[in-house]
């Protein structure tokens, strides 16, 4: 199935936005590690903004960047959110509270504990009542999100934003589910090449596929391998380079997506 990439958003360790990261992804500039920088979204009303943790801020930041790059109207764009674990800090706080004598769970923490919290805040920020789904595929979360977003764009004939994000658990959960750092990546996919088309993207589901693509730079490869949402990096690098590329991304359960990136024309 073929779709078209119209916008990209990116925030990760040493990767401060899509524009700033393109030279690094093209291997024209050295990768330098730095903590993931995420600002609170100005798109949310103040009351909602106060209630959001890092994962929601991350999702809104990369989603906004991709939508603005794409020229698509956020209120008219369907969304697919993909995350391995949602708001990890929030979940840890709830489990601590439930293990304490009082078992006092904060109402805000509880409503933020749903896996689709980012989707809920996004719909408020983007003023969008368009369909939105929130997926999880563990380490393959980005791949399952990309497959669903591509299918929605191709079958529904509409713009779809994929917003993938992950955040590190604090201890003690970090020891059993290590996620290296915060990372968000967003793509706006269209069913036909628009005026801002960056690349054509051929997406094929392959059950029992081969190995996933890796990053040449060892530090970037550690980011890719350490964070489910960063499994997107080989695709983002191909988009940053331009031209034609073939690569595979994991899609959960031993399956892969075979991707073909090509110029729009």
């Amino acid at each position: 199935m073929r779709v078209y990439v119209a916008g990209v958003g990116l925030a990760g360790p040493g990767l401060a936005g899509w524009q700033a990261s393109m030279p690094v992804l093209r291997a024209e500039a050295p990768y330098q590690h730095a903590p993931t920088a995420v600002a609170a979204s100005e798109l949310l009303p103040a009351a909602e903004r106060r209630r959001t943790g890092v994962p929601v801020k991350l999702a809104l930041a990369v989603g906004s960047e991709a939508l603005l790059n794409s020229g698509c109207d956020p209120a008219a764009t369907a969304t697919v959110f993909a995350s391995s674990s949602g708001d990890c800090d929030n979940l840890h706080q709830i489990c601590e509270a439930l293990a304490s004598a009082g078992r006092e769970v904060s109402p805000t923490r509880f409503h933020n504990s749903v896996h689709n919290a980012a989707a809920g805040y996004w719909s408020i920020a983007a003023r969008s009542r368009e369909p939105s789904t929130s997926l999880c595929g563990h380490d393959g979360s980005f791949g399952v999100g990309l497959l669903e977003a591509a299918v929605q764009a191709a079958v529904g004939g509409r713009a779809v934003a994929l917003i993938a994000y992950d955040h590190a658990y604090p201890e003690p959960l970090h020891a059993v589910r290590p996620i290296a750092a915060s990372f968000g990546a967003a793509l706006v996919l269209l069913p036909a090449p628009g005026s801002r088309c960056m690349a054509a993207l051929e997406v094929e589901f392959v059950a029992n596929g081969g190995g996933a693509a890796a990053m040449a730079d060892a530090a970037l490869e550690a980011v890719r391998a350490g964070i489910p949402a960063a499994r997107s990096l080989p695709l983002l690098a191909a988009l940053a380079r331009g031209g034609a590329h073939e690569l595979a991304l994991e899609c959960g359960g031993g399956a892969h997506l075979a991707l073909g990136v090509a110029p729009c024309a």
Partner: protein
Amino acid sequence: MGWPRFFARLDGPTFHEIPASPLQPAAISHYSIVNSLGAGAAPVLHALRGRESGLAPCDFETVALETCIGRVRGLESRRVRSDLAAYDCRNNRLAQWGLELDGFAGAVAAARTRYGAARIGVFMGTSTSAILETELAYRRRDPATGALPPGFRYTETHSTASLGDFVRRYLDLHGPACVVSSACASSAKVFGNAVRMIAAGVCDAAVVGGVDTLCLTTLYGFHSLALISRQPCRPYDAQRDGISLGEGAGFALVEKPRAAAARIALLGIGESCDAHHMSTPHPDGVGARLAMQRALDAAGFAPADIHYINLHGTATRSNDAAEDKAVFDVFGAATPCSSTKGATGHLLGAAGITEAIISALAIEHGLIPGSAQTGAVDAALKCNYQTAGRDAAVKRVLTNSFGFGGANCSLVLGAVG
């Protein structure tokens, strides 16, 4: 950052309304169900006909809340299949029980022979997966290091992906698989994933379903929001004062429309967001209305084509009021409707599939389910609410599932042929 180009345009009440794409109908050829009403379609149907309720005073774990729950009895003594022992937890035990019922696993095995394992997708919905395991593990942290107890398995239990992985492995399927976790709309939305993937040619059939089990996060969480009733929940009742939580599992095999074994047609799906608040529905039910209208449009139906509406009907004051407005706006006061949550409790991530299957039972067995626990219907609500339940020819049903984050999904199911 901002939406400079967009916000000027979007200020004010007007939202974009994109017409729903016409839906290729799909066939539901098999389904299975388990919840506090019973294990299997026959006992659940019997309980619905008798307007029975599975709700009882809370005796779950160490929970000290005055509330009622729809608990599945006997779950604690079950174990998952030995080759999948790493996945053993309350949520996956209930998943396996559901797969074993109503000949479902056998029907999937036959479909696997027909289509091939790589051509059948798995799309599961859950809200909390097996978070209970983590809640219990946090009570047993190492006093010196804070570490979780040895043997705790996050990936196979608590991870939101665990349910999909377990079902895929149990049924030996290799098509596209993921878990949808859009709160209480999750396992209605999975029908959309299945239909889209089949339409795109990524798979030929799909196992969809949802499983959610009792845990402390939801019991104490809804309590913190003052949304839990002390009594069994009473949807649409003038005295309704909150939800009752339950647990359950349901599965359906979705195939291309001409499948030989088709029992129920999946005719329309409508999805929307409220874009209003994280835990409170839009007071006028704007998102709910949009979901229902999109489902009707996708099916190519007028409101009068629907014979029964299975409401989301959680029995909170605001949820039922908002849904009533939305249903009245779309359907008027004629279409019979009811909520079955007084029977099952609110099954959260399993609510959508459970109520889709109840809708299928209503079609196949000619039944408008009544509303267990509901006494006098709130006079302020305007829809044609069915408290008693009755036998009736039901050819087409719309079922609603709405959730936190303003996630809405409506399905239209119909008789085959």
